[in-house]
């Protein structure tokens, strides 16, 4: 796989097929923790981190366990198992070894154990038939895509706080409408040509 191929995977995951705004995966944390920019950044970083690790480990499990044993149909179950244990392990490891990062990611790390975007990246890696390196790149850039989307959205929501919208739209309605508009804006990237 050439370098351009990897770049194309990365760009695709970040912009063209953004996990939140185009694939509509991981909407829950996207709406839940996008009220403030700093929490949104924390969530985005945690997701990126877990997605990268999850794509590597699920690839290994798939390649060395599920495929040889003809158990691909148990993929979802096995991936959930892998991701959940992995996140738990990483959390313990960080708490001991990198307390700074542990505090930065905070509550978000265990929260995204069952984030569908994380499971989504693992399943998509398998469906697309990526190799280990490609999976890693796809995972990282998927996470970056998540980070970009949630950061953009949190800055919009911070402005919404002070905007003068109709009473009926207050709170979640206006949030969902803005999310929809942001998603539409991202549709523009679908025309992006990659080499």
């Amino acid at each position, binding site marked *: 796989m050439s370098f351009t191929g990897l770049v194309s995977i990365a760009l695709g995951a970040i912009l063209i097929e953004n996990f939140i705004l185009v694939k509509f995966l991981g909407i829950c944390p996207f709406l839940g923790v996008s009220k403030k920019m700093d929490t949104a950044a924390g969530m985005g970083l945690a997701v990126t981190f877990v997605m990268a690790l999850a794509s590597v480990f699920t690839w290994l*499990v798939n390649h060395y*366990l*599920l495929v040889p*044993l*003809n*158990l691909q149909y*148990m993929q979802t*179950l*096995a991936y959930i*198992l*892998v991701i959940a*244990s992995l996140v*738990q*392990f990483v959390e*313990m*490891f960080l*708490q*001991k*070894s990198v307390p700074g990062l542990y505090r930065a990611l905070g509550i978000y790390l265990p929260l995204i154990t069952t984030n569908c975007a994380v499971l989504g990246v693992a399943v998509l890696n398998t469906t697309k038939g990526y190799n280990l390196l490609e999976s890693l790149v796809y995972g990282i850039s998927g996470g970056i895509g998540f980070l970009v989307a949630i950061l953009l959205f949190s800055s919009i929501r911070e402005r919404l706080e002070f905007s003068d919208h109709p009473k009926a739209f207050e709170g979640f309605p206006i949030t969902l409408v803005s999310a929809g508009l942001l998603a539409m804006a991202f549709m523009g990237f679908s025309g992006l040509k990659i080499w």
Partner: protein
Amino acid sequence: MHIDIMNIVWAVVVLGAIGAVFGIVLAIASKVFSVGADSRGENILNILPGVNCGGCGFTGCALYAEAVSRGDVPVDLCAPGGRKTAEEIARLMGTDVPESDRMVAVVKCSGGTGALKRFEYDGIHDCRSADLVGGGPLECPSGCIGFGTCVEACPFDAIYLKDGRAVVDHEKCTGCLVCVEACPRKIITPFSYNKDVIIKCSSHERGAAVRRVCGAGCVGCSICKKECPSGAITIDGNLAAIDPEKCTDCGKCVSVCPRGLITHSRPQSGMNSGETM
């Protein structure tokens, strides 16, 4: 339809094995990477009364204990626990209890039913309305009307009426001073919770005038000023005033005041009686 039973067995075995391996790894990791948790929060929680009143500003004792253990908040926010609890927490945290500057409200009037009335007010039963009618029904311009406008204003049920005047319960008072705003006579003032002796009169009238209209008002006789061992009392416009900086709460003035308007704010038993010696 043919079902290969071995397929199912393999799936169970493999997934079970994956789960078991991860479980064991996690169990080991939790031991290897275990971090000694800060147990102070838990210890503080044990000291706290555990009534979860929320008076400290946190939603429950556990959250307050945690915040204290992080060193974010003072150790003396627990009102039900009082000073004793604060000292215990301070010992645990290795700090001192800050000189608490808790303020409470005090109604500076001793008149009540002993105050002379100019007329019988029969309007809306509210101090503010009564005060608007020619300066109120009392002869004394700074006497408590006793209709309980402050009682209703108090969000903490800390003010009650006794003998026709308002009295603040200093244990219940949180020092929000809503009553200070509510009182049309402006005779409720902040007072340090740690202090004891209060002069309960706000009248600046001359002695003879006070004597005529009120059975308990300050006539500016200066006896308390002369008797005060620490020189804390001044007479300002026919009204005695205590300098809280100098006052030692010895209680001398309480016993010498011929009008009986200097009082203790605390019940006189236990610790204070010892200090007055």
